[in-house]
């Protein structure tokens, strides 16, 4: 249904961002269509996380426009702003779980905010989300400080998916996880992406994540999106930044 809509999920045009005098993005364009999985890669300081924060509207770009689902993020209408945010889910790098709330209430938080669902309905939904991200029901009463790194990521993912958003944003989803857990988490995201037909934008450093998600890759360098495409095509692109990123000795094996 939604695939036939002509409006891109994310539509960024002519983006300029800068911290004081340092220009991060210079006239950058970035579009993501429904159902696409796009990974933003690039060296540190290339503005990956800045771009993600601009998509979320946490950081207004210096110049240029950001449209989500066809709506301008700068529109002064609070209800519209809220409704746009409800259609996306964000997984923060450190999880950003509410430390004063147990796991259950963390996942239930966006559902309760709607003011539309009764508690039994919410409890059932939270149970479903927890099963989805492979958490045990017994974990529901734990506090965030009692969770391992991998569990924090999964609880945060469950919270991001609580409203079944159309767009999922991931900031370094596998950072801080050991390779095996990281791969498990990537498989989980991949499975959920296919099942819920999500549009996903992620920031990552990790080659295994890129391979595991089978995604499109957008390389950020020289204050813009240098190139965009499948892994092999991007790798073949002749540019020092890309050679630096992909041809590290540790990732010599080809996916």
């Amino acid at each position, binding site marked *: 249904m939604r695939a036939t*809509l002509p409006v891109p999920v994310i539509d960024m045009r002519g983006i300029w961002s800068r911290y004081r005098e340092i220009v991060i993005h210079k006239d950058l364009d970035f579009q993501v269509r429904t159902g696409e999985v796009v990974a933003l890669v690039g060296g540190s300081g290339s503005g990956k996380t800045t771009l993600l924060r601009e998509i979320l509207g946490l950081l207004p770009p210096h110049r240029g426009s950001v449209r989500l*689902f066809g709506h301008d993020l700068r529109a002064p209408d609070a209800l519209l702003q809220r409704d746009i945010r*409800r259609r996306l889910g964000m997984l923060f790098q450190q999880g950003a779980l509410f430390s004063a709330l147990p796991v259950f209430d963390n996942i239930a938080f966006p559902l309760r905010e709607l003011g539309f669902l009764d508690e039994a*309905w919410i409890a059932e*939904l939270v149970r479903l989300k927890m099963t989805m991200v492979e958490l045990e*029901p017994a974990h529901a009463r734990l506090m*965030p*400080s009692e969770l391992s790194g991998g569990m924090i990521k999964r609880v945060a993912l469950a919270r991001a998916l609580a409203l079944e958003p159309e767009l999922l944003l991931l900031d370094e989803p596998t950072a801080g996880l050991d390779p095996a857990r990281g791969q498990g988490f990537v498989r989980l995201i991949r499975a959920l992406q296919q099942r819920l037909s999500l549009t996903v934008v992620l920031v990552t450093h990790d080659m295994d994540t890129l391979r595991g998600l089978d995604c499109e890759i957008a390389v950020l360098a020289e204050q813009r999106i240098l190139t965009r495409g499948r892994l092999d095509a991007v790798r073949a692109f002749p540019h020092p930044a890309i050679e630096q990123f992909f041809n590290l000795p540790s990732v010599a094996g080809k996916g």
Partner: protein
Amino acid sequence: MNEMTPHATDIPSAPALSHTQDGVVTLSGEWTLASLLQKPAMRAALLAAARRTKHWDLSAVTRMDSALAILLWRLWGGCFPEDAKISPRARAALERIAALPAAESAPNVRGESALAGGLRRVGIFTLGIARNTLGLVDLLGRLALSAGFLCRHPKSIPWKEFSANIFRAGVEALPVSALVGFLIGITISYLSALQLKAFGADIFIVNILGVGIIRELGPVLVAVLVAGRSGSAMTAQIGVMRVTEEIDALAAMGVSATLRVVLPKVAALVLVMPLLVVWSCMAALLGGALAAWKELDLSVVYFFSALPDAVPIANLWIGLCKGVLFGGLISIIACHFGLHVRPNTESLSRRTTASVVSAITLVIIADAILAVFTRDFGV
């Protein structure tokens, strides 16, 4: 409650519900939480339909999310209706709900009487006091050990932290403690002057202000100010260091948190408090003298020359000792509560409140006890 959001979003096909002649309910379009939020009436319609019929046709449902699947599954009583026609996408969503393991029995619903509840709360409160007392004794012991260590290894004395704390708790508190002392001095002097005038005992204003402020009011006033100012800051700082594992990082580097974090704060406050007491007493006496001059025509010079005769020097020593004692109390309590913050925001705010409240309470209790024991000195 959620209102209609007309402008909100473009739903490709809104949820629709219709009844056919033979009692079959037909659902079509998108049945998702998002689409239902925009047409809240559809939920009521669905609930009403479920009460009336057991025959469903969902073959025209284009999309169904888990929220709606859960709702429908509940309405169906946890099984597929016999002759239901269901589109593949809706069926997939419903089957995921069907595959969910059964919920565990509702956890600990406490049914206790008011008496038992009250008893439990008293118990928790008492245990809390006991635990905190133990913690304070523990911290005091650690501080003593650290001090002993520093005596043997004077090189590791954390001078920088010590002086930073003196600046923060002492120097930066000078303006506010002077202002508060000055105003309180004026107030008390003015009120006492009105009474004394009635008895013609004007001269005794010097005795009243001197003893009252130097011995009692000055130390307590400064203690309340410092508990609110520096005590809360200490608890919050150490608490955040706990939350961000900085205390653990110190320990991992072989640096004792007691020595590096707690001791400089306690030492600084013990040193600074008596000085602040003197400072704020001076401001209060100045305010009192000015008010006496205005109200009783008592010259400021006379006020201060009569002060040494009217107020025995023992009062000053008592005031200074109280300063030292209160400074130690406030800083040790603040550090104790900071060190026991659990890593969440809620605990941080509770502990900071508890720190300030217990510090002020204990200061006043200690002051009352001291008043009894020093009743033979200086009056």
